[in-house]
Each structure stands twice: as C-alpha cells, then as structure tokens.
C-alpha cells in the first residue's frame, strides 16, 4: 500500500475515534443539559413561586390585621383593603403561573386546594369588611372573631404550600444526584474512548514510520556513498516497493544511469577540451600580436583624424566668414537695387516733367504764331495808316499853306505808322527768334526725351540685371550658408569620428590587455581541463560508458 493511502487510513481512524468520543460526549451532555434544564425551568420555578405565594399570603394577612386595628378610621380601612386586593391579585396571578408549570396530578390537586382556601379567605375578609362598613362590627376583636372560621382555610393553604416546597426541594436534590451521575458517566466514556484512540493511533504511526524509514535509510546510505565515497556510479538501489519510495528508488537508479552516461561523455569532452584549449592558447597568442599592431594603426588614424578635424574647424570658420560677406553683399545689392529703382522713378518724373515742358513749349510756339498773325494784322493796319497819312500829306500839300499844319499831323501819323511797322518788324524778328528757340528747344527736348527713354531703358535693364544679381547673390548666400552648415556638420562629424577613434584606440588597448589576460586564462583553462580530466577519471563507471568516454577522449 502506498504511503499516502497509509497516512490517509491512519488519519481516518483517528478522526473516527475522535468523532465517536465527541458523539458520545455530546449525547451525554445533551441528556444532562435536558435534566438540568427541566430542573431549572420547572421544579426550581415552582419552588420559587410557592415561596412567593406564601409571602403574599402573609402580606394579605398583615394588611388584614392593619385594617382591623384601624377599624375606627374607615378611610384607612379602605386604603388597607385596596392594598390587600392588589396582593390578592398578584396571588391569583402566581397561582395561574404555577398551574401552567405543574404537570404532576398530585401537584395540580394541591394547587386546586390552595386556590380554594384563598378564595374562601377572600370571601370571608370581604364579608367582614362589609360588616365593618355597615357598622355591625366596630372593634378589632369582633372583626378577628368574625373572620376566624375563614382563617382556618388560609392556614391550611399555608401548610399545603410548605409541604409543596419541601417536596420540590426533595425533587431538586434527587435530580441533582442524577446530573452528577450522568456527568461521571460521560467523563468515564470519553476517557476510555480517548485512551483507545491513542493506542490505535500509536500502533498505526509506528507501523507507518517503520515502513517509510527503512527504504529512506537505504537511499541515504547509497547517496552518501556516491557523494562522499569513491563515486561508484555502478551501484543501484534494490528497494522494489510499490509505494512512492519504490518510485523514488527507480528514478534514482535511472538518474545514476544517466549521470554515469553523462560523466562518460564529459570525460571525452574534457579530453577534447584539453586539446582545444592548447590550440586556443596558440591562437590567442597570435591575436595578441595582431592586436598590438592594430592598436598602433588605430592610434595613427586617430592622429590623422584630429588633423582632419582641425582643418574642418578652419574651413567652418572661413565658410562662416564667407556667409557673413555674402550677407553683406546681399544687403548692399538690395540697397543698390532700391537706389536704382529710385533713380528710375526720378527719371520717370523728369521725363514726365519734360513731356509737360515740351507740350508747353509747343503751345508757346503756337501762341507765338498766333502773335505773328496778330502782328501781321497790326502791320497791315500800320500800312493802311501810313497810306492814309500819305494821302493826308498829299492833301495837305495840295492845300498849300493852309494844309501845312495838317501836313505836320499827317507826317507824325506817318512816322508813328513807320514806328509801328518797325516795331512790328522787330517784334516779328523777336518772335521768329522765339520760334527758332522753341524749335531748338523742341528738338533738344525730343533729343533729351529720347536720351531719357534710353536712360529709362538702361535703368530698367540695370534693375533687371540687379534683380538677377540679387537672385544670384541670394543663391550664393544660401549656397554659402549651406556650405557653412555642411562644414559645421562635417566638423561635428569629424569630432565625433575623432572621439569614436579614441574610443576604438581605448578599446584596442583594452582588447590587447584582454587578449593578454585571455592568453593567461587560456593557459589556466588548459590546466583546468587537465585537472577536470583527472577528476573525471576518479568516477567508477559501467564498462560500456567507460569505453565510450575513453573512445571520445
């Protein structure tokens, strides 16, 4: 049987005994509790009620005596009657409760007798009180004598109550004895059951422990022997049980077989490792020399890259200066383009003014021609005047002495006409000069206009050229900026390359040192492989596994 089943069986038996003992104890405890409960709920309460009933009867009798002693004061008699009646009501209530609890015929008969005696006493007391109120009884003595026959009954009731109380005490004592007996029985049964369960559990535990400990000790011996002894992996566990220990032993034997095979393989691999470690040591030694050469080459590259980075820095600074010059050139070119545009605007203004002047000059020529026409008219008038003056002079001459004065006037008129003609001729000459000047001005203005138009054309061409120059300068500025940016990036990249190469140099040094360390470590590994080979040979292996391991080695 498996260990788990055995453990389950033992635990189940223990649990059974515990449930048995607990059930017996519970049954007996319930029995005792029922007895005790009846004792407390019925008998003790009846005994208590009987005592309360006797106390109430005594109180009623005290109020009766007080009423009779104060018979001269009817109001006090009434007061005592009221208090007596209250006690009487409580007495009746107690009798009702006792009737409900009482179950024995004897007790029930006894209670009926007590009720009847109290009712007779009630009847007698009320009858005496009626006589007192009627005045038929006026002294305490007479009242005691009158109620005497009824008081015999109440004495009988008091005796019955006393007897009932004594009986209830006897019942209580008997029941208490029964409870003590039941408790003793329960204790005996439970102790017996517990002892029996302990004995059975001990037997089962011993059997279970013995069945587990024996194979465990065998396993321990073998494992310690393999671990601390000579490492004989050819030994096996012989326990063939069907329980978990049997499975553990089978698994352990299988594990030892695998370990046997693995150590055989490890022995082969160790021999191979020993050979390869020597080869690695030789290769590492060669690599150490190459690494030193590599470190030297990388150091030279680092130096060259530092020079290259320095050159890149200078190029970046120069390109920055080129960008600044290009910006200045761009700004000045913009200013020049603006000035040329202003100049073009001024030339346009001058051209417009010149056109206006030309129009005015042409108009002046036209006006001069009109003046010429007017002067021709004036000249004609002067000629006519002169002719008239000549006619007048002729007439004056023909008149002789009489026309002499008239002749003088005619002469003056003729001279005036001559002056007018001379003046008009002079004016015509001046006007002709003006017209000539106007014509020259017009021609000059036309030439000037042509030159101004040429100047405008040149200015437009200049603006166009300047705009092209501006675009080219902007492109040059952008290109210079791009060059500056590229050179800055190149500088940064060169710095990064220098840093990277420094890291590589550092890495090469570390690599050289690591290879040196690896060289020594490889020697150590070779030495350790030899040690491992020696260690593996300490294991005693099966013949087949030993053959395969040595074959690989």
């Amino acid at each position, binding site marked *: 049987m498996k260990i788990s089943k055995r453990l389950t069986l033992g635990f189940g038996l223990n649990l059974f005994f515990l449930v048995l003992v607990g059930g017996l104890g519970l049954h007996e405890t319930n029995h005792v509790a029922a007895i005790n409960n009846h004792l407390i709920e019925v008998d003790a309460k009846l005994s208590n009620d009987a005592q309360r009933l006797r106390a109430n009867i005594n109180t009623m009798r005290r109020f009766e005596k007080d009423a009779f002693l104060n018979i001269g004061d009817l109001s006090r008699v009434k007061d005592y009657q009221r208090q007596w009646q209250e006690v009487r009501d409580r007495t009746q209530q107690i009798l009702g409760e006792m009737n409900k609890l009482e179950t024995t015929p004897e007790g029930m008969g006894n209670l009926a007798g007590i009720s009847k005696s109290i009712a007779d006493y009630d009847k007698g007391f009320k009858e005496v009180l009626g006589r007192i109120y009627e005045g038929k009884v006026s002294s305490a003595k007479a009242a005691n004598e009158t109620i005497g026959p009824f008081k015999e009954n109440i004495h009988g009731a008091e005796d019955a109550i006393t007897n009932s109380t004594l009986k209830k005490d006897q019942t209580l004592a008997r029941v208490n004895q029964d409870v003590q007996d039941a408790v003793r029985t329960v204790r005996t049964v439970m102790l017996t059951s517990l002892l029996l369960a302990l004995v059975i559990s001990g037997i089962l535990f011993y059997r279970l422990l013995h069945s587990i400990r024996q194979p465990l000790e065998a396993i321990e011996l073998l494992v310690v022997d393999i671990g601390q002894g000579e490492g004989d992996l050819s030994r096996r566990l012989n326990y063939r049980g069907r329980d978990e220990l049997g499975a553990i032993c089978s698994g352990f034997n299988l594990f030892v077989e695998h370990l046997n095979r693995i150590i055989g393989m490890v022995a082969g691999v160790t021999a191979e490792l020993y050979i390869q470690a020597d080869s690695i040591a030789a290769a590492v030694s060669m690599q150490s020399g190459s690494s030193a050469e590599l470190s030297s080459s990388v150091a030279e590259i680092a130096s060259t890259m530092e020079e290259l980075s320095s050159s890149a820095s200078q190029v970046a600074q120069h390109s920055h200066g080129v960008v600044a010059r290009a910006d200045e050139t761009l700004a000045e070119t913009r200013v020049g383009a603006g000035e040329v545009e202003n100049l073009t605007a001024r030339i346009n203004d001058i051209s417009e003014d010149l056109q206006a002047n030309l129009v005015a000059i042409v108009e002046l020529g036209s006006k001069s021609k009109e003046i010429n026409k007017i002067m021709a008219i004036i000249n004609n008038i002067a000629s006519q005047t002169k*002719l008239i003056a000549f*006619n007048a002079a*002729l007439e004056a*001459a023909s008149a002789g002495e009489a026309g002499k004065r008239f002749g003088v006037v005619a002469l003056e008129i003729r001279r005036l006409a001559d002056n007018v003609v001379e003046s008009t001729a002079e004016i015509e000459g001046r006007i002709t000069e003006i017209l000539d000047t106007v014509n020259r001005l017009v021609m000059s203005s036309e030439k000037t206009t042509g030159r101004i138009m040429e100047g405008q054309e040149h200015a437009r061409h200049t603006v166009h050229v300047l705009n092209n120059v501006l675009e080219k300068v902007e492109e040059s500025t952008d290109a210079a900026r791009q060059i500056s940016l590229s050179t800055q990036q190149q500088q940064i990249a060169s710095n990064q390359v220098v840093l990277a190469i420094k890291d590589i140099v550092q890495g090469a040094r570390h690599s050289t040192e690591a290879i040196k360390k690896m060289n020594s470590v490889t020697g150590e590994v070779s030495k350790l492989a030899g040690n491992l080979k020696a260690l593996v040979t300490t294991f005693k292996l099966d013949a087949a596994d030993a053959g395969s391991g040595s074959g690989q080695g």
Partner: protein
Amino acid sequence: MTPPDLRVHLLLFRLGQARFAVLASQIETLRAHDASGPARWCHALLGFPAAPSYRAPTEALVSGTWIVLDAMEELLDIPLEAIRPFPDLVEPFSLRRGLWGILPNQGQLIFLVDLQQMVKPDTILQPDPVAHSKLV
C-alpha cells in the same frame, strides 16, 4: 536863282534798288495794292528790263490810272532849285521814259518821274505778268 518860296512836294518811293520821286500834285490818292484791280506796274512804265521785287506795293491814282508803286518813303518839301536836270546827253532818252530831273539827297540820287505823262494813252503799257506773279 529860284525864289525862296518856289517849293514843291515830292513823294519818294523805291523801285528795286533805285529811289524815285513824283510830284505830290500828280497823285490824286493812294490805296493798298489790289491784285485783282486794273493797275499798271511802275517798272513797266519805266521800261525796266526785269521786274524788281516789290516790298510794299501801293497803288497811286494818277490821271485816272492806278499805278503800282513800291516802298513809299517820304513826302519831301524841297525847293525847286534842288532839282537838277539830266545831262544833255541822256535827257532826250530820259524824257521819253518820263524822267525829268534828279534830286541829290543824303548822298543818293533820286530820279523824278512824270507819272501823268507816263500814263498818257499813247504810252500805256500792259502790266508785266512776271512782276505780278512775284507779288502773289
């Protein structure tokens, strides 16, 4: 010697480069030249070989005939004795042309013409078409 009060009025005019004068008493009136009018050209009356250039042609009415003169300059009141006759050699010829005397004036010679004689019917000539065309 001519008495001091014997004086004549002469109307001076030009014809080409020459200066001429006519007695004011021969001229009835003067007017502006009308190209469309029936006037006689003075140079034609004087027998100029070619028409001179007229600067200010003016018509003078002489014995009912309008004669085109040029550049009337002055009306002179001169003593008759200032007028000199032509030399004998040329006088017959000049008289046929209507020229009857010479007046020296300011270093120049002024030829005196008799327009009335020149416009007599037997001496009337047609207007010179060449000179007329130059006036237009």
